[in-house]
């Protein structure tokens, strides 16, 4: 409760191109969550600016941010964050509902997206009836259903065993090859190494930004 203001991020200057597969790494307290919230348009910076796809996001209000998130960002969370009472299909339809897509069309899109992550036969299962890996696939399908500019994953394998974790990362590789822009926030080297670029944060500053051989 000190009077001192803590800036989670300072002087971070970053540019990510369409189609890149980027990992953001750093120990806890390094500011990677804050960076993710900013990139995901969940939060706006106290100072500085963020331009996404030619749109200045930094000065937007709540509702405009919601719209941008809906259109441009697909989130994949460590804890999946699916709606527990809705089945897979409905979870995947959710972004489309908020985008105002008609019922028939969104069902079509959701079905396609679910089968593209390998869950075409699980569409009416609720999250509680699925394994962790399957849940995370539903979450990826949900993130992709609105064809966002960025797939933003926060520790996507953190709650999965190593085998299913590897499956999800393989899915990411596949999506990246198809041209999706992917940003993975993680503290695991093994996860980060799948990306083609790794940005390391330390104490709110970018410590390094390098290409990998992946």
């Amino acid at each position, binding site marked *: 409760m000190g009077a001192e203001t803590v800036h989670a991020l300072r002087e971070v200057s970053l540019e990510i191109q369409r189609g890149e597969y980027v990992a953001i790494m750093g120990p806890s307290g390094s500011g990677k969550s804050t960076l993710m919230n900013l990139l995901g348009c969940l*939060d706006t910076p106290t100072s500085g600016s963020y331009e996404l796809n030619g749109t200045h996001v930094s000065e937007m209000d709540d509702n405009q941010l919601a719209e941008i998130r809906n259109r441009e960002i697909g989130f994949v969370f460590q804890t999946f964050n699916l709606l527990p009472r809705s089945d897979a299909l409905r979870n995947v339809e959710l*972004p489309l509902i908020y*985008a105002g897509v008609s019922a028939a069309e969104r069902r079509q899109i959701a079905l396609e997206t679910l089968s593209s992550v390998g869950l075409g036969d699980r569409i009416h299962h609720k999250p509680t009836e699925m394994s962790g890996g399957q849940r995370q696939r539903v979450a990826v399908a949900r993130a992709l259903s609105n064809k966002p500019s960025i797939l933003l994953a926060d520790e996507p394998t953190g709650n999965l065993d190593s085998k299913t974790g590897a499956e999800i990362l393989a899915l990411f590789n596949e999506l990246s090859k198809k041209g999706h822009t992917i940003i993975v926030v993680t503290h695991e080297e093994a996860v980060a190494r799948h990306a083609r670029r790794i940005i390391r944060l330390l104490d709110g500053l970018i410590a390094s930004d390098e290409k990998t051989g992946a």
Partner: protein
Amino acid sequence: MNFFTELREGLSISWGAIRANKLRSILTTLGIVIGIVTVTLMGTAIEGLNGAFLRSISFIGADVLYVDRMSWFISSEKEWIESLKHPGISLGQVDQLEKQLTLASAIAPSASTQLQVKYDKRHANNVQIIGTTEQFLATSGVSIMEGHFLSELDSDNGRQVCVIGSQVATNLFPRGSALGQKISIGQRPFVVVGVLDKQGTFFGNSLDNEAIIPLTQYLAAFDHSPDLEIRVKVKNLADIENAREELDATMRRIRHLAPEDLDDFSINQQDQFITLFHRVAGTIALIGVFITGLSLFVGGIGIMNIMFVSVAERTREIGIRKAIGAKRRTILLQFLIEAASICLIGGLIGLGIAWPLTLLVQKVLPATMSPLIVGISLLVSLVTGLISGIFPAWRAARMNPVDALRNE
């Protein structure tokens, strides 16, 4: 996303939420159920009371003016003492009135008293004996079940005939017809020429315990200088105010009142009863609204409370929805719809409970659960839901997605 989709989406989400918490939802609606039962019963009772009253005073007739020595409603002792000085209305005045009134379709003078009526060994007590003319049929709204009413000849010639109310008929002639039988009214014989249809009661007094005889007979037998009441039926109900003025002016002339004198008679009509009744009914309704308002208020607080709980429980869901693109309005609407749905369901349950209770009330009052009351009840429950849901919903809508997602 357009409003209609949001509405449908909100409905489906809230339906899921309500079903997921069945017991809680039921307990929460209880307050609203009780409130709506009270609203409905109160409304039904007031409507019933209204209907019962209007029906019971319908015998007075909306288009009939009553000229009496005294007003039906005396509001002060002074007025009472003043009206005691009024001279009675005489038959001569009735005759003059008949000649001078232009807006009246029937004029019937009447006088009444209570006497015992006998037939053979059977008797009926406290029968209202009304002496009047054949015009009474038009001014009083009575109808004949059997036989005929007093004819003009009967009343002009003072024949010893009578028309009896249905209660008198059943009392004296439990078997067989009363027509043509000779009954004794206050020791005098009268032949029954007609029996009236049942009229019901007025403030607990039976209107069917009566016997109508020609006024001339009445005057000769029971009262030589009675205080007459004159019933004036107007030709056209729309014209009743003019008719009243004409009646007033004519009566003043007939009774030789100077312009500065106050009326020494009173013109009464059904309206006065209705006005008085509405004043009483208005007070009852006001108390009713207060009581129902109180129970709905308590119910509404229950809803608000559970909605705050619901919002807190679903903080994470709200965070997910916001992250995925739900706007404030969407979240607000979702929780508003949930609150409104709970209340509407409560309203429907309330109506379901009130319905059989109304049937019970029907045994006492002519109460029906009208579509208007059903509509009002549902509207009230909807509004209660919206009002008690707005604060919790607003709290949900304003949540910061980052904090909401972090919530465990």
